[in-house]
């Protein structure tokens, strides 16, 4: 296992691994998404307080967790790239940023749409919402810093430092509902959260589907990034020629 991970530091090996992994992430993702949506929208009962309006939770919570998880992966991969000079870790960090930004947009948008019927406002400057918005800005800053350099190694170095410094925001988002008195409801997962088993199953299915979606998008986008970085290698030229013929 450890040997296998070490071999992924080679661009050619990593490219072929990504190629092989795509169907292994795609089909489980589609299956879990369909089952998860059915469980969320049909099987789960209406909430005793929020009626059917609570069903937004099944996309809001997984995408909010993923927005933070992807950021952690991005910062750790960036750190691995900085410390051990592993170029493929830089690739993972770079391609994760737009995916994480996508999850953050989904979390913010579904939160606003959920807030309107329950709180009466699309947006409030509350600790949870503000810190999640800061996360979106961190992703955008990472992406613009990364694209500001011609040399991909220099770009990875500066943007990885930004990503690592931004890690401080993750505990702030997580504990914001505890540290501050906010309008945002408390934790849904764990004690005091949702208790209905069907709701829990639906949420778990959507969460695993979101992880698979992230993995799938990383493998798809990493292939392109490896080809760009290694465009002067013999194997990339052969690969591009065989793909375009």
């Amino acid at each position, binding site marked *: 296992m450890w040997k296998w991970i070490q071999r992924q530091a080679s661009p050619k090996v990593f490219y072929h691994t990504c190629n092989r992994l795509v169907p292994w992430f795609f089909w489980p993702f589609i299956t879990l998404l369909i089952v998860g949506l059915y469980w969320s929208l049909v099987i789960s009962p209406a909430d005793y307080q929020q009626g059917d309006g609570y069903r937004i939770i099944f996309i809001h919570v997984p995408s909010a967790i993923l927005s933070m998880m992807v950021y952690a992966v991005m910062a750790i991969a960036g750190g691995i790239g900085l410390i051990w000079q592993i170029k493929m870790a830089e690739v993972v960090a770079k391609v994760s940023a*737009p995916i994480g930004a996508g999850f953050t947009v989904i979390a913010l948008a579904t939160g606003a749409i959920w807030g309107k019927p329950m709180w009466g406002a699309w947006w409030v400057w509350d600790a949870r919402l503000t810190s999640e918005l800061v996360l979106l800005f961190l992703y955008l800053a990472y992406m613009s810093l990364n694209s500001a350099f011609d040399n991909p190694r220099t770009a990875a170095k500066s943007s990885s430092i930004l990503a690592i410094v931004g890690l401080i925001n993750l505990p702030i988002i997580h504990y914001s509902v505890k540290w501050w008195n906010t309008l945002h409801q408390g934790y849904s997962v764990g004690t005091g959260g949702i208790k209905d088993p069907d709701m829990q199953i639906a949420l778990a299915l959507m969460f695993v589907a979101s992880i698979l979606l992230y993995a799938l998008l990383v493998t798809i986008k990493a292939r392109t990034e490896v080809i760009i970085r290694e465009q002067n290698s013999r194997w990339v030229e052969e690969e591009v020629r065989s793909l*375009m013929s």
Partner: protein
Amino acid sequence: MTMIEFFSFLPYGKYAFYVWLAYGISALTIIALFVTARRNHFNTLSSLSNKYSRIK
């Protein structure tokens, strides 16, 4: 007639507008991620294959 009343024929009645809007926006965001990834990949392949054919 408000949007909320207009969309109340859908499942979840008075919440239908909000629930389906949330699911719709999420679906669009995810589809956009796939479309841009795919377009990027093909643009890269075609520009690189142009580059290689110029060299030879």
